């Protein structure tokens, strides 16, 4: 058994996959350095140095076989942070190289592919929920700020959505769990990685003077648009799982 250790990046993973083919490894697993714990003393370790050319060669080849949308699915699997993520992607790549004429991602009867399809479904649901449940709060310097805590690392997947939608206001979305964010300053929309965790203590004091008022209006609206005669708590929680409540203005 050979273990390939890579740096945790998307390009790193695809460099590793390139090297699986390059060195013709048969019995192999890929693991990020961060998650690596040596259990098998006799496993051989192969350290991967990320090389974009190698990664791109795999991705280009793949794109011919499974299309842009296929690549997007593999990206979703990558962002799922699932424990098996690297090896599922490796399995998909191997299958695709073996059957270049088919889109192997549609072979739902294969166990790895079915897992991939399930992960994609979960990730895209979380992505969709983030487009819905992000709540901006206007700060004194006219920035609209939102905190999120998604189950998967979906910030890269919602960048375009928010960039297209809020082109004429400054905004920032910050992932509390992964400690990085996305900032749009009316021109550029870039990720940022603060050295220290953002200090969100008393940040309500930084609210724009009108912020509280609009929050109150939204809460009144939310309460009044409910039809009491049709109360259905189970359905409500199914749609808005409780773990999101603390970030929702209407669930104060």
């Amino acid at each position, binding site marked *: 058994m050979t273990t390939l250790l890579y740096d945790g990046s998307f390009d790193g993973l695809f460099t590793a996959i390139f090297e699986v083919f390059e060195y013709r490894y048969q019995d192999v697993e890929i693991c990020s350095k961060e998650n690596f714990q040596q259990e098998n003393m006799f496993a051989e370790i192969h350290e991967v140095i990320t090389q974009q050319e190698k990664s791109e060669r795999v991705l280009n080849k793949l794109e011919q076989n499974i299309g842009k949308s296929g690549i997007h699915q593999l990206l979703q699997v990558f962002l799922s942070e699932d424990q098996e993520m690297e090896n599922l992607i490796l399995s998909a790549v191997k299958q695709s190289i073996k059957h270049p004429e*088919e889109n192997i991602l*549609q*072979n*739902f*009867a*294969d166990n790895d592919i*079915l897992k991939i399809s399930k992960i994609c479904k979960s990730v895209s649901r979380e992505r*969709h929920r983030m*487009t*819905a*449940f*992000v*709540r*901006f*709060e*206007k700060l004194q310097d006219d920035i*609209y700020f*939102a905190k999120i805590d998604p189950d998967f690392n979906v910030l890269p997947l919602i960048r375009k*959505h928010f960039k*297209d*939608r*809020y*082109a*004429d*206001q400054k905004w920032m979305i910050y992932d509390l769990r992964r400690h990085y964010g996305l900032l749009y300053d009316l021109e550029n929309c870039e990720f940022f990685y603060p050295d220290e965790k953002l200090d969100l203590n008393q940040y309500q004091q930084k609210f724009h003077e009108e912020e509280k*008022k*609009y929050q*109150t*209006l*939204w809460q*009144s*609206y*939310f309460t*009044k*648009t*409910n*039809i*009491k*005669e*049709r*109360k*259905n*708590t*189970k*359905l*409500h929680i*199914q*749609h*808005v799982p409780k773990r999101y409540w603390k970030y*929702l*203005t*209407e669930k104060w």
Partner: protein
Amino acid sequence: MNFDRIKEKLEILADAAKYDVSCSSSGGKRKNNGGLGDSSASGICHTYTEDGRCVSLLKILLTNHCIYDCIYCISRKSNDIKRAAFTVEEVVDLTISFYRRNYIEGLFLSSGIFKDADTTMERLVRVAKKLRTEHNFNGYIHLKSIPGASDDLMNEAALYADRLSVNLEIPTESGLKLLAPDKNREDMLQPMRIVQKGIQQYKDEKKIIRSTPKFAPAGQSTQMIVGATNENDLQIIKVADHFYKNYGMKRVYYSGYIPVTVDNRLPSITSEVPVLRENRLYQSDWLMRFYGFKADEILDFNMPFLDLEVDPKLSWALRHLDQFPVNLQTADHKMILRIPGIGVKTAQKIVSARKFQVLNIDHLKKLGAAVNRAKFFIDFTYGNPFLKHLTDLNLRKLIIGGSQSKFQNQFSQQLTLF
């Protein structure tokens, strides 16, 4: 701006608008050009009310003052309630401020009829126009057209709104006469015709002139109240079908009547909201829109009401056992869609996956089918022991017994009424 007053108005006018069930914000085709928002994405539900309905739009009335007296309506003139009216600016400001905070996909604006149809419609159009032209707002706008509004105003409305709708309210004409004496069907149909004509014209011109301004790009929808009069489900489905076909409707909504008034022409104030019936109507609607069923396959004169015990697709299958079993490996997509327990997505997956290998019941489960229903109707290449029940007189019981309906509780509640 006086926030306390706005808050009070918002409470009154959201409360009065909440019975309108249309909520969707899909089908918009506006790209953002550096302003605020876009409605090119398929709809997003930003939150859900405690009754489980989605909130994607700020749904309010411009005013609940009304000169009419429709008996089923809270805002009717004879009802003694608090009245309020927003100014155009107030609605615009609420929409923009909520949108900027990502609370909503846009605005759904309806209104009681004050003064006359045109005055009301003109005010609604002004809100939409201001949002589009002064604020460069590209979010979704759904305007409720006022029955009897003039053609010119309807045409103008369609330039700024993504969707327009006139509610049919009561499925039958006689029911409408009884419950909404000031309204007539023709006044409702005329604005629909104008919008339909405009959409067609837009499509034709668009082929020649690319810059033709958008005309109600998300189309029109309508809504019927179910259970306020004694219409049957066949009538309702037929009306819906008629509007899908002849008016190019995007959606027909069904709204189970919620008793709000004591009146001997209406169901009693203590009657239950017909939630299950409403759900079955939506299921039938989906069968017509996505599963290739025709209205008279779902119900006919011998059977004018939907089966409350089983969903309409299963009900159809049980009445057409001769069409089964369906061979999973070879049947065409159209027939796969008709198997109880198999949805649109699963049907698609089956058709892709079976190219790779012969499918068995485990695959079917993994692909997302409700196997406890589907298994009775499918012929697998490997054979299927459940097929022996297909000729069983008790098949219906067997299936119901083996599946848990999410409405079972409500259903037993209803049963005790008899």
